[in-house]
């Protein structure tokens, strides 16, 4: 990608200030998906900032969760009323989202819940009743 020389621009990006600390953990565009497991459910946390909520579509297809959405990352350069806008840096992820998450267990499909808050999509997938850990009573004689 061609980028202007930002160091000459008054609003330049002072990344060198943080360079020593950043060497330990390189910056990513979008933080990775998190998967959490409890006895009764598995939870997916997908950081997806800028999603248009009305385009968000979560479905269960052949043991796979599928997430589709349009992303709306606003920039003045995209607005027709700002024809003279100049993009100086473009680091955010954009474009449509299409995620496929293989479950690897039998879900209780009717009880799957998805919420989108603060730019994070959370999907709670309860395990089917027969998949949950069960205590087996021991009879002593």
């Amino acid at each position: 990608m061609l980028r202007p020389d930002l160091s000459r621009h008054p609003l330049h990006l002072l990344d060198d200030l943080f360079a020593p600390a950043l060497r330990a953990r390189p910056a990513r565009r979008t933080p990775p998906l998190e998967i959490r497991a409890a006895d009764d459910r598995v939870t997916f946390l997908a950081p997806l900032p800028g999603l248009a909520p009305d385009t968000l579509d979560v479905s269960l297809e052949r043991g796979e969760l599928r997430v589709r959405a349009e992303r709306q990352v606003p920039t003045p350069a995209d607005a027709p009323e700002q024809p003279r806008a100049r993009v100086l840096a473009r680091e955010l992820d954009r474009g449509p989202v299409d995620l496929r998450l293989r479950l690897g267990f039998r879900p209780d499909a009717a009880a799957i819940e998805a919420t989108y808050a603060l730019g994070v999509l959370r999907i709670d997938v309860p395990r089917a009743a027969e998949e949950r850990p069960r205590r087996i009573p021991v009879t002593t004689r």
Partner: protein
Amino acid sequence: MNPTANQTDQPRTAALTLERIPADLAETDAGWSLVLALPGVAEADIELRVERGSLQIAATRTADVPEGVRVLREGPGTARLEREFLLPAGVGPEAVSASLEAGLLRIEIARPPEARVRVPIKNG
């Protein structure tokens, strides 16, 4: 992706990592427009400062893992997020406005009125 790999029961609050906030920057006739990606960060955990000619954005992201829950694949985690931009001359705190929506922090910086200074030319 293999959810059973990287299985960990370690608490993730031991050390606060520092991350650089990704940003889009554009210039218009009216000023400058910044969009920063801060998914999972609440408004109360974001601090904006205009200081000594720079705009500083700092935020804290907290990952609370409830007891009895195992992290199979580590995501964003707890971290300190920072970014700093040098402001053009004449831009003060009053020129900066910000809003947070769907994990995107949008900052508008108004362009200051252009200072026109006439430079006298000496006759030699």
